[in-house]
């Protein structure tokens, strides 16, 4: 005990909450019991630490306190008769292994177990994201509900359902077997990226929760990079997220209008994030093996980040990177971005041709950005009447208000 030392219980809780929960889930074999256990442990700490002093190993103390309180409660209530035998076994085993509990490697393993369990493919994708935000990032149910634009009650039910499935279908609290690891790891990256894009989607103004989601995605990525280092796709994803997040301050004007990359005030870009992102791109590219789509996207973002303005951007290299990306991960969105890059190198005519072939294949017809890009290319080629029609088509399938305003403003330039 560190008697009389000044300490900040809140800071300890913030630092240890995730690790304590991850280990308690393993020891108690149940998410809800573990959450209760953690809460009781924190309550006990608030009651005891100020008078008795902070224990030498606060984390181990919290875990032991939480586990013991839950086992006491179960004994007292006489509930879960069949479960108590299991719990006592788990408890006895962990007493035997008291020392390794202090080891960061064990806690790291538990946090990985928690991440992989929350991102298990047997849970639907939305549940994976919600559960990860709640259990791994420690967001309140209310905050998760806000992120998904649903009521707290609805979100609470979704989380309950996901945890029930984990329990009843016996989704293992384990890191995946080597045979399944790569695929499952990609799944976790998908969840992290979804958290990020959820927070990065263009909305009018900056909701606080959006900023928080992007920060959580980056934090999750860094945690995973600590636990499973040097996985190129993750490093690429981290770089991608930082380089995009760096532009946050320049993406929306004071009046809530979208500012396109080419028009952004680059002095508003966050240079600290850019520097970190650029270093990560280098790291991702230095890992041998197949390059990940995240890394290619990060490399594209890096070229934008390095350029003083749109004209000074290395567009030929961006065209090349989009070609690589469309081989790795073919999609209409990638083709569309490739067309925009081509228009910066070879002019609007070949770019328009690429879009027409995309539309001819029946892809992305309803995709408003496709119409918007077409309109832009037609305008550049002086085909004003067709451009006007394309802007109208784009407006017809846009739902977001800031995007409507952007398109309307662009269409208005035709009439000048």
């Amino acid at each position, binding site marked *: 005990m560190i008697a009389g030392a000044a300490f900040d219980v809140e800071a300890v809780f913030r630092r240890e909450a995730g690790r304590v929960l991850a280990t308690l889930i393993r020891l108690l074999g149940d998410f809800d019991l573990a959450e209760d256990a953690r809460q009781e442990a924190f309550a006990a700490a608030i009651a005891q630490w100020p008078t008795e002093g902070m224990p030498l190993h606060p984390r181990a103390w919290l875990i032991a306190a939480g586990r013991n309180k839950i086992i006491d409660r179960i004994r007292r209530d006489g509930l879960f008769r069949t479960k108590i035998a299991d719990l006592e076994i788990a408890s006895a085993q962990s007493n035997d292994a008291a020392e390794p509990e202090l080891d960061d490697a064990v806690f790291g393993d538990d946090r990985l177990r928690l991440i992989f369990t929350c991102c*298990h493919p*047997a849970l639907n994708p939305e549940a994976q994201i919600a559960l990860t935000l709640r259990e791994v990032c420690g967001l309140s149910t209310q905050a998760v509900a806000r992120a998904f634009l649903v009521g707290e009650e609805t979100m609470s039910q979704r989380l309950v359902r996901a945890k029930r499935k984990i329990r*009843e*279908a*016996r*989704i*293992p609290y*384990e890191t*995946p077997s080597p045979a*399944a690891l790569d695929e499952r790891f990609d799944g976790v990256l998908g969840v992290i990226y979804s958290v990020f894009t959820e927070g990065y989607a263009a909305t009018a103004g900056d909701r606080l929760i959006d900023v928080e989601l992007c920060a959580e995605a980056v934090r999750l990525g860094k945690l995973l990079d600590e636990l499973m280092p040097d996985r190129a796709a993750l490093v690429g994803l981290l770089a991608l997220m930082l380089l995009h997040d760096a532009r946050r301050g320049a993406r929306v004007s004071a009046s809530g209008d979208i500012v396109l990359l080419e028009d952004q005030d680059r002095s508003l870009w966050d240079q600290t994030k850019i520097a970190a992102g650029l270093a990560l791109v280098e790291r991702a590219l230095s890992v041998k093996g197949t390059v990940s789509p995240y890394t290619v996207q990060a490399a594209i973002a890096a070229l934008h980040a390095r350029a003083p303005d749109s004209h000074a951007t290395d567009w030929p290299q961006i065209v090349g990177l989009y070609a690589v990306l469309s081989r790795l991960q073919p999609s209409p969105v990638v083709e569309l971005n490739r067309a925009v890059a081509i228009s910066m190198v070879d002019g609007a005519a070949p770019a328009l041709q690429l879009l027409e072939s995309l539309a001819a294949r029946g892809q992305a017809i309803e995709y408003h950005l496709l119409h918007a890009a077409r309109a832009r290319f037609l305008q550049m080629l002086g085909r004003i009447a067709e451009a006007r029609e394309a802007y109208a088509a784009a407006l017809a399938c846009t739902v977001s208000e800031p995007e409507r305003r952007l398109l309307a403003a662009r269409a208005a330039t035709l009439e000048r």
Partner: protein
Amino acid sequence: MNYLLLIYSNEAEFAALGTAALATISEEYAEFTKSIVQAGKFKAADRLRPVSTASTVRVRNGKTAITDGPFAETREQLGGFYLVDAKDLDEAIAIAARIPSARHGSIEVRPIWPLT
């Protein structure tokens, strides 16, 4: 833990397969079954009659209502099952993925809820 692996596939497409293709699939099934029996994972398995023979039973207010057909119409129909003993969902999914029909149909994995 026991898991029921439900095999969904398109009956019409299956019926349209030639004798040679059917023989190949039968062999694959025999091989797969033998392998999970040997691994001690096998509990029970069988093939189901076509969905046209299915009935759905519902009891409402004490009355039994029987309707013709499966409970939901989809492109695929329940065609068979394996009951297996797996340590967790990951193992059950891994076994399910080895069922030959997983390649063209779907396998529904349902944890068994013991009656005791």
